């Protein structure tokens, strides 16, 4: 995955062109690739700006998705098929989906507030951003590219095999270190969110048992209008003895005084019931 970790670094257009030039065999891009680049690059730039300026969090997330997919196109165009497609599977399919999972709970009408929750947050953000930019410029500017071997040779045994040779051969130590780091982070998340259960878990079964024990009504409450003269919402249902069940009518209607009085049907049965009691 260390190859993947480099993906965001390659995200800016000049770096891409520089890399494209060094990586292709002849040192210059083909026409098709150039057309593709000039079509996709503006889309990516607009989408990346959308991330910064979108008011809704989900729109920002969608902009990132667009950038990622366009980036995958560029990777594929440069014969980095594995990298391009794995980026979509891992970043777009899993990581951004996790982001969306959280963002969706924010709701469609909510937009970012510009109130700082942490004091000086904005300045720290600017500082970190400028610092990152400086580091990137320094690293990219100071890079000396070895003479290009050409993609045909790099991908001689198919692109995934070439990537695998690099990741599990030359960079295996970095790969293992990143793996250990990720496992540590996952364990840390588990430990930090773990809490002892103080009370026994109350599942569906326990709740059902408790309801039975308490003698509560086990069946769903009666719907309004059942066995009554009309089946409108405001007419109380009748019980087997023909007496109206007030609680079958919605609480709202009862509070407004809009529940209809249901004259008990079967007056004979009612009278009979009364006399027997």
């Amino acid at each position: 995955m260390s190859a993947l970790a480099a993906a965001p670094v390659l995200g800016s257009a000049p770096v891409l062109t520089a890399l494209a030039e060094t990586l292709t065999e002849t040192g210059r891009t083909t026409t098709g690739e150039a057309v593709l680049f000039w079509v996709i690059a503006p889309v990516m730039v607009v989408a990346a700006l959308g991330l910064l300026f979108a008011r809704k969090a989900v729109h920002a997330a969608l902009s990132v998705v667009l950038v990622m997919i366009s980036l995958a196109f560029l990777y594929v165009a440069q014969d980095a098929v594995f990298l391009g497609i794995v980026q979509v599977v891992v970043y777009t399919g899993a990581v951004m989906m996790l982001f969306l999972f959280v963002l969706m709970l924010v709701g469609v009408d909510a937009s970012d507030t510009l109130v700082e929750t942490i004091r000086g947050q904005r300045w720290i953000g600017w500082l970190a951003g400028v610092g990152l930019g400086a580091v990137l410029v320094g690293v990219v500017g100071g890079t000396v590219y070895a003479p290009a071997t050409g993609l045909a040779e790099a991908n001689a045994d198919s692109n995934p095999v070439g990537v695998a040779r690099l990741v599990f051969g030359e960079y295996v130590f970095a790969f293992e270190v990143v793996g250990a780091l990720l496992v540590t982070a996952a364990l840390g998340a588990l430990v930090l969110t773990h809490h002892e259960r103080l009370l026994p878990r109350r599942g569906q079964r326990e709740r059902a048992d408790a309801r039975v024990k308490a003698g509560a009504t086990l069946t769903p409450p009666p719907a309004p209008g059942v066995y009554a003269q009309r089946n409108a919402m405001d007419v109380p249902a009748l019980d087997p003895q023909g007496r109206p069940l007030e609680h079958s009518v919605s609480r709202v209607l009862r509070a407004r005084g809009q529940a209809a009085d249901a004259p008990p049907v079967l007056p004979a049965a009612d009278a009979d019931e009364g006399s027997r009691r």
Partner: protein
Amino acid sequence: MSVLAATGGAVAPVVADFSQDTWWVWVLKAVGIVAFLLTSVLIAIWFERRVVARMQVRPGPNVHGPFGLLQSLADAMKLLVKEDVTVRAADKLVYVLAPMIAVFCSLLTLAVIPFGPEVSIFGVLTPLQLTDFPVAVLYILACASVGVYGIVLGGWASNSTYPLLGGVRSTAQVISYELAMGLSLVSVFIMSGSMSTSQIVDAQRPVWWLLPLLPAFVLYVVSMVGETNRLPFDLPEAEGELVGGYTTEYSSMKFAWFFLAEYINMLNVSAVATTLFLGGWRAPWPLSLVGDGVLNTGWWPVLWFLAKVWGFMFLFVWIRGSVLRFRYDQFMKLGWKVLIPVALVWVVCVAVVQGLRQFVDVDLRTLLFGIAGVFAVVFVVALVWPDAKRPQPPRRRGPQVVDPFADGYPVPPLPGQALPPSPRRARAMAAAPAAGPSGQRAADRSADHPADRPTDESPTQEVSP
């Protein structure tokens, strides 16, 4: 994928040979795939309704056209001319975009599925496959994972509670089930030594991966049902709980697109399962021997491929007809606590076996016998290993007396259990000598009207004589 073909400098080592393809072959294949998918969806809807109806002992659609075959066409027309409602509170752009994403991504997958070996199309020798490249199966996964965005965004953009819940469920579902799906595919990659679909089909020449990789196949089938949001995993839609889930606020053609995407996805995962585990277009066993494998050449394989795909479609319908929807927590538990651990263990096992085959000079037969031996030893040891002494409850003699109202609700005694003696019966017996037959009648009457029972009486059930 024309980008790939146009700019692919290095020739990717895949089995299928596309060197003779011309632009019109590409167009022909691409249009063919889309036409195949759209007509298959119409047939699939009819097929599902007829088969489910058959399982529920009713006729199903049988009015429009022969055997009701035109029913889906009529439904599609109805959806076309229905009013296209756009919810006012919706996020317009995303709301319109979401069904498009779902359909577009579902149409992409079949581009890398081999329908057959090399055939001659108007004099051009070409594999029956639009394209193939070294990471074709990963490309399928990528298309599927982007396609889920359609569902998720549709749920979010509707700005309504039930769709949002459906969308949130869908995100959680895709995160948990794609892991299991990807891991189950890894063992196929390891065995085939490639992620290109044509090479995976080629690697299944001796034996279909279904047999040696059975656990992976089972994992894939479970997660593919989850991936397509079909019962018992249709939680994002869940008519009984969420009205229509993410589709609730969609109508007319936008709804139809979601519907279309769901059915195309069913065809997609069926085709992927066929390609990866059932030998792709290869003829099934007795047929593959006919005429020295003549049924594995030319256009014949399309028939086997379609038969296998529709077998999976039948499986989908069968599952829908027989299994209830999972509760959400059970569904998550199944994904995270069963599927993913099993998939991980299985991948490690396959990797170890394959590694031994590759790096140690041992032939497969010895290796399999060795593994079987290890399992046999473990099995025997487990049999003779003394059980941990558990305190055995003392065995009672005679029936055990239970309180039938122990948890507040009357429960009849199980075999080997008896009810405590009924106090009412005891009273009746006590009254019988004094009052004669009339006392017995009184006891019977009180049994008819349980409400008349004195409240201080302990509630027990009468043992029938």
